[in-house]
């Protein structure tokens, strides 16, 4: 298992840490591999919606976020909220790798008493800034954190990763209204717009487009990118407006559900929640590993 990509330094991990596009792409694939392993261990899991945001998670955690793994509650850390809490499986190996907790914790994933669950719990897992699972809440929570930052005079950013189906929740738009009303330029929403929710194409269930225009109408700065184009993800996160600026930012990341695994790209919806059989597991691991070998 290629765990050797870049050793993590202790202390504060600053914003804009050096990471090449290749390193981040390999890290995204590493997240996919780790997810496949953890799901196999637990017996059931969310594959394809984790894969659609793997490049985003990789770039946030290995470049963009200001963190202190040895002091997870440090008051000026950047916050990251997993609005689409069902992709926590992809975050657990990242937090272990960065030193928030021991890698041994991963072995308990999915078991009774494990601090690492299918959805994240802030009371159990260091590095989780807020619990999630109920869709539509975390943009409100993040707005509260951004307001708290302003009130405390701290310059941390609050990032909220939402799914596109999640945007059907009305509360998201209450938060969107409040964030621009309070001029929270320290708040960044990232929409993993993979086009699918649990039971089918998102906009077939309830149209959410045009997303950019909708957020713009709510007073947000909108950046629309290909969420798998690592250079685009990186440069968008590198060039965020200053946290003291006055407009919240939404990054609409157009992604593919199941990205990086052929089987799941073909049937993204079927792999929203599931379990690979032994043969599929071997094929998927081989596919991802082969890609990583090319850039070793």
């Amino acid at each position, binding site marked *: 298992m290629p765990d050797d990509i870049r050793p993590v330094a202790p202390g504060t991990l600053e914003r804009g840490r050096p990471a090449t596009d290749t390193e981040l792409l390999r890290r995204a694939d590493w997240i996919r591999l780790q997810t496949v392993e953890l799901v196999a261990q637990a017996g059931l899991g969310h594959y394809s919606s984790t894969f659609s945001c793997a490049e985003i998670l990789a770039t946030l955690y290995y470049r963009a976020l200001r963190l202190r793994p040895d002091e997870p509650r440090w*008051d000026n850390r950047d916050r990251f909220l997993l609005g689409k809490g069902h992709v926590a499986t992809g975050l657990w190996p990242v937090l272990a790798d960065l030193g928030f907790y021991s890698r041994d914790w991963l072995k308990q994933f999915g078991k009774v008493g494990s601090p690492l669950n299918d959805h994240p*719990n*802030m*009371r159990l897992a260091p590095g989780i*800034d*807020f*619990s999630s*699972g*109920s869709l539509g*809440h*975390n943009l*409100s*929570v*993040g*707005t*509260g*954190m951004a*307001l*708290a*930052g302003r*009130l*405390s005079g701290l310059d941390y950013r609050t990032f909220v990763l939402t799914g596109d189906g999640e945007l059907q929740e*009305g*509360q998201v738009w*209450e*938060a969107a*209204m*409040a964030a621009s*009303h*309070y001029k929270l330029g320290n708040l960044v929403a990232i929409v993993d717009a993979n086009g699918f929710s649990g039971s089918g194409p998102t906009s077939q269930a309830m149209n959410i487009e045009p997303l950019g225009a909708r957020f713009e109408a709510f007073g947000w700065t909108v950046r629309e990118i290909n969420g798998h184009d690592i250079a685009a993800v990186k440069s968008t996160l590198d060039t965020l407006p200053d946290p003291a600026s006055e407009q919240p930012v939404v990054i609409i990341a157009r992604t593919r559900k199941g990205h990086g695994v052929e089987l799941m790209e073909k049937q993204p919806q079927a792999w929203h929640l599931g379990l690979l059989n032994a043969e599929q597991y071997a094929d998927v691991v081989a596919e991802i590993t082969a890609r990583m070998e090319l850039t070793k």
Partner: protein
Amino acid sequence: MTEPKMVDVFSDIERETAAVANPAGYAVTELAAENPRIVTLTADLSNTLAEFTEKFPDRYIELGIAETNSVSLASGMAACGYVPYIFSMAPFGILKTAEQLRTDADYNHLPVRMVGRLAGLAMGYFGTSHYAVEDIAIARTLNNTTVVAPADANSAIALIRATADLAGPVYIRMAEAADKVYDQVPSYEHGRWPRLRHGGDITLVGHGMGVGLAAAAAEILFEHHSIEADVFDAAYLRPYDEDALVASVRKTGRVLSIEDHSVVGGLGSIVAETAGRHGLVAALAQCALPAEDLEVGVPAELYEYYGLTAGGVVARALKLVKG
């Protein structure tokens, strides 16, 4: 006799009368002077925080008519070290946001405070959409949330002070129609029910407006019927004073609970659950709102209609004692 009329429950109040007319706003403003981490949030209810907004304009956050967002946003602030007091109308503050309170505030043990104004039938005239008669049933199933229901203005000030430093969420249920029970600000012990009167014939427990009714009824029961009631201010509904309740019921064998809440899930249910759990043989009755569609009207008339008056409590108590 003057005809009961709807009181303007929304009017701003004068500073001199704030402690009486708006005890929650008064108490939170007082606490905020000592604790800079206290912030207030409202969903279009700023008129209850006139003094706070004047003194601490930066720490007052208006969120518009968006209760669910308010609760999740407050939880986010609480996760960053703040102690948010959300002022909301009880029917919307609790019922509409039950899931946000549970998932964001309660499950995460965060110090979010929900001040539910105009609970029970206080907004009677406005219609059943504005009733909060299921709120305690919901709030007391939240495992980490403290639920209090002040008996009057002094009681509200005391309970807001007493719960200010709790690490978890607090629901403060404001009953605006309460008669005065306490001449001074009382002191409460966490989860304990102050005893207002000693007696061996019947136990009367009430919260909110029910406390004043219980006290008044006990007086009448003693003066006119020589019945001595054990009377408690059941200010804490979670945790509640199980010891005091069990000891009293063992003594009296009869309990009447009084509350402007549904007969389902409130104090009446607490009494029944406790009696059952302890194997107490006791007669139980409730002065509360029936589990059916409720009438609409001016609160004073509704209280009369549903027997939530001192006379109504006396009649129910007599039936319980005399059979």
